[in-house]
């Protein structure tokens, strides 16, 4: 069974020379509204089976983050369709919706509710989330007093405990100390074993190899290669000259 079905999608962004969005500007500066279409992805199709874990790689600007945002339904394709089956949790931006004046605990409620969890589901997960974050007593301090590492740990703990069917991760394991990074990878391997479908965007090929059983390499908005991580990574490294 497929968890994610991407059929022939294309995505372009409008690049405005100088964008105006009020009526006055729209009329007065008609010229400025000229924009160029920048094609980010073209005619991409792939399926990801339930339980698969896939790494998306490619050089900057190749469209891999756009792909992830499309799967997360934050943006929509200009052509083609994307179907996802099950609850999607995205770690695209950690701590989206965190409120600096609220305590860590209150932010867990807010953040988990944005992922669509009910009150009782959050209550049930609360202890596990706090434990995983290793924040201890700081959990009842306002989030603005946190270091960026603490902030990241809290955000990651919430997102990883959502019990998603599909987990989307964008380049976030780059932060935090090594011990916590290893703990996150370990946790991701665990939820992979539980049958969660995982899609990771990363430049850290080693991390992808330790979690994923498949890598898709995007180049200039198309799929350059799709296969076992080791094979794809070798070709990729050759291509970028390393």
């Amino acid at each position, binding site marked *: 069974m497929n968890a994610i079905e991407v059929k022939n999608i294309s995505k372009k962004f409008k690049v405005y020379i100088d964008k105006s969005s009020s009526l006055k500007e729209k009329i007065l500066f008609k010229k400025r509204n000229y924009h160029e279409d920048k094609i980010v992805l073209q005619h991409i199709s792939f399926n990801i089976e339930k339980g698969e874990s896939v790494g998306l790689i490619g050089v900057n600007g190749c469209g891999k983050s756009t792909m992830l945002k499309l799967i997360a*339904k934050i*943006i929509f394709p200009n052509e083609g369709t994307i179907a996802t089956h099950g609850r999607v949790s995205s770690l695209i931006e950690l701590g989206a919706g965190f409120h600096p004046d609220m305590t860590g605990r209150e932010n867990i*409620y*807010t953040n988990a509710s*944005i992922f669509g969890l009910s009150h009782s589901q959050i209550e049930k997960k609360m202890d596990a989330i706090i434990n995983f974050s290793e924040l201890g007593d700081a959990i009842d301090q306002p989030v603005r007093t946190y270091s960026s590492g603490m902030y990241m740990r809290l955000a990651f703990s919430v997102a990883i405990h959502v019990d998603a069917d599909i987990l989307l991760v964008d380049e976030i394991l780059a932060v935090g100390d090594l011990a916590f990074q290893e703990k996150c990878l370990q946790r991701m391997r665990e939820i992979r074993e539980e049958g969660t479908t995982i899609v990771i965007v990363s430049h850290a090929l080693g991390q992808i190899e330790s979690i994923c059983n498949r890598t898709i390499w995007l180049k200039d908005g198309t799929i350059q290669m799709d296969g076992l991580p080791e094979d794809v990574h070798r070709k990729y490294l050759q291509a970028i000259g390393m």
Partner: protein
Amino acid sequence: MEIIRELYQYREMISNLVKKDLRGRYKGSVFGFLWTFINPLLQLCVYTMVFSVILRAGIDKYYLFLFVALIPWIFFSTSVNVGSNIIIQEKNLVTKIYFPREVLPVALVTSNFVNMLYSFIIVLAAVVLLGNNVNFVAWIFLPLIMAVEFVFTLGCTLLFSAITVYFRDMQHILGIVTMAWQFLTPVMYSVDMVPEELIPYFMANPMTSIIIAFRDVLYYGSFPEISILFIPFSESVILLVFGEVVFHRLQRGFAEEL
């Protein structure tokens, strides 16, 4: 239909946003949450002073006549005005994470609605203490009238919040439109003062029937005419469906437009 199921799934997010808004509104002020009650009370005092001492209107207890209509009106106009900006205001969430975007306008209208319910404690107390015609039985119509107003307000807010993302002038236009709308709705005057030939136009405005119904129940102590409530109800439902269809189409581009 799908959206109703999804909104139900995200009910915790809605209730969180509502609570945050209600608590945050008067955060840091000395009276805090009490302002929810002080505010309408002070308004009533001002109207009473102005209209019973200085500007004598030809309507008995004009301050009460005005008060019972103004509180529901403020719910509507605040929701539409603040609501038109809600997607832009929550840009951080919309561009970074998936959730049904309808959550934002729904939560905003709900929080203003709850605020109106609190104000109604003052309204009902004022009616009992100061009113000439208190009819407790007629009060059973209040939830019905409020429900109609809620549906209408939500429909408007969905529509305008989605349009404002693409057309930022909308919020400034709405400021003027809601002001004009208030004068074209019998909030400050009685519908009897409207020239006969203009009545059909007035009745095409759902807010007219809603305000009349509130006033019938609270000021005149009579039962509202169900027939005049039925039309705004149908109009409101149609508007809500239309608003949602437009919102749903436009929301696809929110993250890119912001």
